[in-house]
């Protein structure tokens, strides 16, 4: 049953690849913008063994993960404060609603000017972009904590620090994990976008150079690889989520 399902899903892309390859060969197409699947596969293999793909992937993931850790980490702290102090949440609301819609890419020129090219600007922009989703998810996670748990912390006479580390964060952890998983996709998108637009690093830059130096085989190979990386990052985090939190995270991701 599952095999049939897989086979049905595979027919369309495989047929497209065959038609593509055949058209390129029969028409004997020599193009600066299109390459046959066989050429793309060759370029992919070449980039894999000469170290281009591992190096570029490392650069992109370093930017994405560092930015996610910094932006998401800051958002966890802020969301705990806003979640536990409703007055603070109401007072910050307008500022958050005004700042949140600023597209991270609009800050690219600001980052170029103040930080220059390199990891710093990519990380800063990823951190900005990842801050908001983690803040919003985290805040709703804290607000929706079972009130009885907070009563427990009061009965136990926990201090503010003990209450946060022993009750609030463990209770909200599955939702925070979901927030980080969704933000990981944002982090990858923003780091690649910054690489394409400006920063001479990572998969995005390799893709851009391949396009501008008229190497369609390498260009499509990098696009393919980027899809695989995006898929793998999500798959790994989904797996971790199921192993670590099980149904708790499942219900959290539905809300």
């Amino acid at each position: 049953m599952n095999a049939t399902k897989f086979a049905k899903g595979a027919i369309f892309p495989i047929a497209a690849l065959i038609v593509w390859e055949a058209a390129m060969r029969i028409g004997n197409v020599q193009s600066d913008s299109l390459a046959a699947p066989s050429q793309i596969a060759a370029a992919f293999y070449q980039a894999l063994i000469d170290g281009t793909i591992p190096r570029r992937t490392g650069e992109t993931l370093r930017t994405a993960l560092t930015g996610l850790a910094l932006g998401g980490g800051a958002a966890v702290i802020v969301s705990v404060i806003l979640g536990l102090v409703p007055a603070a949440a109401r007072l910050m609301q307008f500022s958050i609603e005004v700042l949140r819609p600023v597209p991270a890419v609009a800050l690219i020129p600001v980052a170029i000017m103040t930080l220059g090219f390199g990891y710093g600007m990519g990380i800063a922009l990823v951190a900005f972009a990842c801050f908001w989703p983690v803040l919003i998810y985290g805040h709703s996670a804290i607000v929706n904590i079972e009130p009885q748990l907070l009563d427990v912390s009061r009965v136990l006479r926990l201090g503010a620090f003990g209450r946060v580390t022993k009750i609030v964060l463990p209770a909200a952890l599955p939702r925070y994990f979901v927030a980080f998983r969704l933000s990981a996709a944002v982090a990858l998108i923003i780091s690649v976008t910054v690489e394409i637009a400006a920063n001479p690093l990572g998969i995005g830059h390799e893709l851009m150079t391949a396009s501008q130096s008229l190497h369609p085989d390498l260009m499509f190979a990098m696009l393919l690889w980027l899809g695989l990386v995006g898929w793998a990052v999500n798959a790994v985090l989904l797996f971790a989520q199921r192993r670590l939190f099980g149904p708790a995270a499942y219900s959290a991701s539905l809300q």
Partner: protein
Amino acid sequence: MSPVVRLLWFGGSVAVTALLVLLWQLIATYSGIPPVFLPGPDRAWNALVAGIGTGELTRLTWATVERMLYGWVLASMLGIALGALIGSSRRAREYIGPTLELVRPVPVSAFMPIVMAFLGLSGRMVLVVIAIGSIWPVLLATVHGVSNVEPRLLEVSRSLRFSRFQTLWKFALPNAQTDILAGMRLGLTVALVLAVIGEMLASEAGLGYHILTTARSYRSDQLFAGVILLGLIGLASNLVLQAIEWRVLRWRRR
């Protein structure tokens, strides 16, 4: 909470924002950071007013908004049509669905170098990239919404002997409204991002290219004015879409 109290809290949160702007002003004036890197809100505001006065900024803003809207409308129409086609047929879902899932994790900005290789650096390239990028959220949301109709409604449509098109029009699409609107909202955000990046890369007139050139020549007050305008576009488009969602989905709340 009574409306008066709510209004007071809202006023308080606006006041906090004003305080933050004041803090920015104080840092810019007294911290010793050269205004080239950190212009105060006063300088950014002056640049904004001057730019609107000459008509320059209004023209650039409109160019970006127009690009974003054209690409988004194109993507939404195509996305809903294709999504309805794929979503309403079980066979199409089985055969094409997995391919869509395969393309979904690719960051949309990665399509830009590909389209550039075909169309070169031009306004047309930017428009095509916006359309390709912002079609995904709409398409996937439509497929999801159209294919998840309450089974009893499908039984009703069968007993009324509705054609496939009638079922789609009368049951599946109204059912998918929430999903489609959410997808369109996401698509509009993507469209703005791609419009900005596209203008930067293709040197097409608009706010995206404007903020890049002002940064390169260290006219940071104009740069900040541009960033503020882009933030306003993001805010305004989100509010408009929310208002549309609220109106269109009113029948669901009853």
